[in-house]
């Protein structure tokens, strides 16, 4: 979380200066089709126009997409935690036939076929029909949800494409521009559209803040929620309704193919930074807002590139960064922790090996304080399945930590700090072994390996608990080993036979 705040601080310098402009006129650019992808290198005046937020329309469009990103981040968090993210994808694809039909109907009635409220109403109706179809398939047949999603998604999208083909042939009205709903195009947004999108997005955020605990409970433990009398079906429908609204209002800016990304990527990225749901939603809101803001700014500078792609690319950069560098759940930190654990395990193995070698030969003195005798590396090498080079590397590291001293190439000895640490390690190892024998009915000869796996991650409170639990068996100082220690050339078996009584 703290690391994330730092990144936010850096990011916050961006949007203040880096903001947008849509088309100068604010009119729908009908001459361009979605296949027109010629990229013009933006001139200085274009950059300036965007940076300085020069016209009203630009400002509103950016505000609208930012609010959209916030809403998507928030609602997406719950959709993700409820494991319903793909439902949003099916939903957004299912909106296409509705858009086409709304256009045809409105045009034939003599209305403006490209009015956003009309098109979005059509989109919502057909999106909801799509969800209904999914639920119907799932409940009436034995098909699983993924099959139902796949069928509905493709059938509705296919129907939508066919209908768009019909629209293109129509005599009345300019159909061009409808494709912007497929890939997203902020350039075709006018101020009133942006206001509609922004206010709907804000409403979604407010509703989910109000229902925060109820939605959290729904996502975590539906059964418990029902048992406590929460109207789970209603809550589920509310959440789905919020997903519908966010998806619908995102169609114009992000496009129906890519809308799912704005719902999924910011929350998924946020999850790498936190273990608390509140933080997760806040971070998702911020990431969503930044994606919307920067993405629409980019598309204003490159007007022929679909804004949906821009928004997704921005979100993806944030996601990749979070996935790699996120703390506490990113890849790097987890690798690092793994590495640290391995190092610790290796060090403990080395110390225990030396200790047990000395113990087997009766070379440990009573008080265990003075310097100990030399141990040949070859003997240690035989005690575990480690290669000689690996062992030497471990010894070298232990030497740096001043736990052992190398006398010549083949012999080492413990320092007094090393001896202390070794005694502690051996004691904990044997505590754990004894616990396994006493309480888990593990055969004594198998214990060593089992104990190995777990003991390295024992926490101090567990050690204390083990000690109090096994206090009868423990003697002063380091515990005796509950099993025979196999050491080459060891003549004596130091363990007390009666320590096996625990089994």
């Amino acid at each position, binding site marked *: 979380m703290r690391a994330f705040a730092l990144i936010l601080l850096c990011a916050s310098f961006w949007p203040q200066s880096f903001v947008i402009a849509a088309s100068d006129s604010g009119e729908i650019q009908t001459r361009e089709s979605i296949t027109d992808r010629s990229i013009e290198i933006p001139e200085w005046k274009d950059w300036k126009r965007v940076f300085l937020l020069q016209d009203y329309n630009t400002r509103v469009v950016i505000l609208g997409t930012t609010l959209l990103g916030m809403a998507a981040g928030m609602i997406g968090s719950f959709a993700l*935690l409820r494991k319903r993210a793909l439902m949003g994808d099916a939903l957004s694809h299912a909106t296409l036939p509705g858009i086409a039909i709304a256009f045809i109907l409105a045009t034939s009635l003599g209305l403006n076929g490209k009015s956003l409220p009309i098109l979005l109403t059509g989109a919502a109706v057909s999106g909801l029909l799509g969800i209904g179809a999914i639920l119907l398939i799932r409940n009436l047949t034995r098909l699983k949800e993924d099959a139902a999603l796949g069928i509905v998604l493709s059938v509705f999208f296919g129907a939508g494409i066919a209908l768009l083909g019909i629209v293109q042939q129509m005599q009345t009205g300019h159909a061009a521009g409808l494709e912007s709903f497929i890939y997203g195009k902020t350039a075709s947004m006018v101020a009133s559209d942006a206001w509609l999108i922004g206010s709907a997005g804000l409403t979604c955020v407010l509703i989910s803040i*109000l*229902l*925060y*605990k*109820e939605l*959290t*409970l729904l*996502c*975590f*433990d539906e*059964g*418990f929620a*029902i*048992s*406590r*009398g*929460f109207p789970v079906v209603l809550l589920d429908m509310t959440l789905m309704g919020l997903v519908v609204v966010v998806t619908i209002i995102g169609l114009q800016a992000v496009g129906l193919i890519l809308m799912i990304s704005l719902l999924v990527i910011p929350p998924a990225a946020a*999850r790498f930074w*936190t*273990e*608390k*749901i509140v*933080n*997760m939603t806040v971070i998702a809101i911020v990431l969503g807002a930044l994606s919307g803001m920067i993405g629409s700014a980019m598309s204003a500078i490159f007007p022929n590139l679909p804004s949906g792609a821009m928004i997704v690319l921005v979100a993806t950069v944030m996601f990749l960064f979070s996935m790699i560098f996120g703390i506490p759940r990113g890849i790097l930190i987890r690798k690092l922790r793994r590495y640290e654990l391995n190092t610790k395990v290796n060090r403990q193995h080395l110390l225990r090996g030396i200790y047990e070698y000395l113990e087997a030969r009766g070379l440990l003195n009573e008080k265990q304080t003075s310097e100990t005798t030399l141990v040949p590396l070859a003997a240690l090498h035989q005690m575990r399945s480690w290669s000689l080079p690996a062992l030497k590397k471990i010894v070298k590291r232990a030497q740096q930590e001043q736990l052992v001293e190398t006398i010549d190439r083949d012999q080492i000895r413990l320092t007094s700090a090393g001896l202390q640490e070794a005694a502690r390690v051996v004691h904990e190892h044997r505590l754990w072994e004894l616990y396994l024998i006493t*309480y888990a009915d593990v055969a004594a000869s198998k214990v060593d390996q089992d104990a190995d796996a777990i003991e390295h991650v024992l926490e101090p*409170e567990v050690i204390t*608990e083990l000690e109090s639990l096994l206090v009868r068996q423990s003697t002063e100082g380091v515990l005796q080993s509950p099993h025979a220690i196999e050491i080459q050339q060891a003549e004596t078996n130091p363990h007390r036979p009666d320590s096996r009584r625990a089994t």
Partner: protein
Amino acid sequence: MNTKESFTSAPQPGSSPTETPLSVYDLTVAYHRKPVIWDVGFEIPPGKLVGIVGPNGAGKSTLIKAIMGLIPKASGRVQIFGKPYQKNRHRVGYVPQRESVDWDFPVDALDVVTMGLYKEIGWCLPVRKKHRVRAMEALDRVGIADYAHRQISQLSGGQQQRTFLARALVQNADLYLMDEPFAAVDAATEKAIVQILQEMKQDGKTALVIHHDLQTVPEYFDYVILLNMRVIDHGLTEDVFTPENLQKTYGGRLTLLEEATETMRRREQSL
């Protein structure tokens, strides 16, 4: 231990100390038209620890879920302290199976326990300090207050189970329904849960617990329900927890009933 009469006395609606916490009448539940429990009926006496035992697939979880309306009943009736579940659900605490949730969920142990208070806090209102204090007390009672701020996947199985128990305790119910609270927990957790069950009993509360370990049944429970699709027997542990009854519950497959329902189900599908 109480005398036998107090258990067999008829339910007296309205009179609080001897109210029957739970009565189940002719309950049948089916998945895909296949009955999971069949004509189940029993009453449990107040202030007792009641164990439900039976083999895998006997419908123990289904019974508890159907009592609370988590899954629909095909037929039958359930009364909690003499009223339908909906009227008295505030008096019921539920401890679900540990495997029923995703423990990677971004909440800590304290958050989970606080969920037991969401109903009481009310719609749209935030969790306040006094609620967190109560949740903390519940965690303390189950002995894991030190782990309150751990993300729940970093708790051990026993600690997760105790978290669920604390979530039910915090709502201060009168009847607790627990779905295998002893499943795969460490010895210390088992001891802690038994301790809490005993405390509940002393406070006059009733617990209905699904249990797998037959050895500990006589030690933990005053009253036992033997279940295998139907109720084989129920009553005081010393009376009904007998080798013959266990043989009936675990040994005797209800072949005829199973065959009949299987045939019905196939016919249903082929239609």
